């Protein structure tokens, strides 16, 4: 008798705790859904805003028009800012990739005094707040006439982008087996030949990823660009900042959609390549 009671009590307790678990489960899934919605909403919202017909920002947007995109492509000030940003990002990508790859080789494979300190120095531009870098750069480079012009931006953005290249190429080099290079040297290749025929092809995915990071680090960079832009030399991010602050039109939504498409395409390509190559499991 007593045993049956116990079994019954256990079953009741089980059912109760399971019902409690189900409620908890639903609450957790609901909460998770809300957070994911919170994360993705701002990126998604600019797309409908950019094709609505109203000339002020309203929601839900009515109608469908490409007028804001046309306005963006026809406006000389938006176009010159876009080209300025693209030129800077192009040069930054090239310079940061070359400088960063060379340094990564030395930092991973070379003999260097004070290597730890050098590595910390290399990633310092990522740690120091960009507002401090921006103000400091302006203080030193404005008197030299290097603000509001292409060369000043090329220097500043290469400095900001190069840590990303060192980190990505460094990681690729650490995965690369040095015995392969030794084998090439053993077969009579020179250091340079071994590098271009054996090392570089193996770390190329890392170098390419570093180059994309460098491009976006420059193209999307807003804080330093805000301080060292001029009336003539103005990046797309500085132009956006001004328009958001003073002149909130749907053209900004159109520009935002274009920028987002560029970023997502570039980063998505890297992510897919990374998953394909199996480097994503980093074991």
């Amino acid at each position: 008798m007593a045993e049956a009671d116990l079994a019954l009590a256990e079953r009741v307790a089980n059912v109760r705790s399971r019902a409690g678990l189900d409620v908890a489960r639903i609450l957790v899934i609901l909460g998770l859904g809300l957070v994911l919605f919170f994360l993705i909403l701002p990126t998604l919202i600019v797309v409908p805003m950019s094709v609505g017909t109203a000339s002020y920002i309203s929601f839900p947007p009515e109608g469908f028009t490409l007028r804001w995109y046309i306005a963006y492509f026809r406006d000389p000030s938006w176009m010159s800012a876009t080209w300025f940003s693209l030129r800077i990002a192009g040069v930054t990508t090239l310079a940061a990739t070359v400088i960063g790859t060379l340094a990564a080789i030395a930092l991973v494979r070379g003999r260097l005094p004070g290597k730890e300190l050098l590595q910390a120095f290399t990633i310092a531009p990522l740690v120091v707040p960009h507002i401090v870098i921006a103000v400091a750069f302006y203080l030193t480079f404005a008197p030299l006439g290097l603000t509001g012009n292409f060369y000043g931006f090329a220097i500043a953005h290469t400095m900001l982008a190069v840590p990303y290249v060192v980190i990505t190429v460094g990681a690729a080099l650490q995965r690369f087996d040095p015995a392969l290079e030794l084998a090439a040297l053993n077969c009579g290749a020179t250091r340079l030949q071994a590098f271009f025929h054996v090392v570089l092809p193996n770390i190329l995915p890392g170098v390419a990823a570093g180059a994309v990071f460098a491009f976006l680090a420059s193209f999307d960079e807003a804080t330093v660009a805000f301080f060292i832009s001029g009336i003539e030399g103005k990046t797309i991010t500085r132009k956006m900042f001004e328009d958001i602050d003073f002149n909130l039109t749907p053209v900004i939504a159109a520009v935002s959609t274009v920028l987002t498409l560029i970023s997502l395409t570039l980063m998505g390509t890297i992510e897919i390549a990374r998953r394909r190559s199996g480097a994503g499991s980093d074991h």
Partner: protein
Amino acid sequence: MPESSLAQPRIHGSPSSAGRYGTMTSLVLVSPLILLLGIAFAYPVGRLLWNSVFAPEPTLAHYTRIVAEPLYLVVLWRTFQIAFIVTVLAFLFGYPVAYAMARIPGRRAMLIAACVLVPLWTSILVRTYAWIVLLQRNGIVNTVLQETGLTETPLQLLYTQGAVILAMTHVLLPFMVLPIYSTLRNIPDDLAKAARNLGAGAPQAFIRITLPLSLPGAAAGTLITFILALGFYITPALVGGPRTLMMSTLIAQQTTELLDWPFAGALSAVLLTSTLLLAALYRRALSFSKGFSNG
């Protein structure tokens, strides 16, 4: 084939062994980077800090001003307060997302990963702009609030501290999720299962097994979020107002409007010191978590 069984390689040019590059070669390779960082980063930042103490003559007046004037103390306090609240919110929102990303299999995990990575890859300006659209007077949030009858007149949401906290939490959330995710992924699910087999309930298994093991990632995510929140400029500048002045927006104001470079230098020094101290902590948290995944 073990390396020792290879014949001693005859290497042309460089005298280094074992495939490593000699000191001279290494120095040549790393010198463009040192030159670039020296000229464009270390020298300007050093000069800004130097100015705060020695321009025009040696003085600590700019530093005592930060502590002596209530306005600046309030800004300093507010900066840490906002960074703290943002970090706590990011942890509360971010941990469950990281957990789901690490434990849910297949397509749904991809969907969650996309929800984390897509905003991370979207320009900060675009995300800040989206929050302005959402929070403005005739914006979406106010429309929803009015239509559901929660409020009659539109609320002032933009340019408030709440708006700054909300937008910053959104922008920084992926930096919290990713480090936690990477430690959770390295914890075998079997550990929690073993605890369940030994009679622990699901909450108990989580609190006593999974949560403690994921602490290194949580520490790294928390510190990186806090560091980024302290020095954040774009979002507080656009979403905040005069009453939500933070360290970064105050530094900008001192340089662009008041042209007080020494004082901006002193403020930068305070911000920089706080950041570097936290970064040193971060390195420790990181080596801690590395120790875990290797052993």
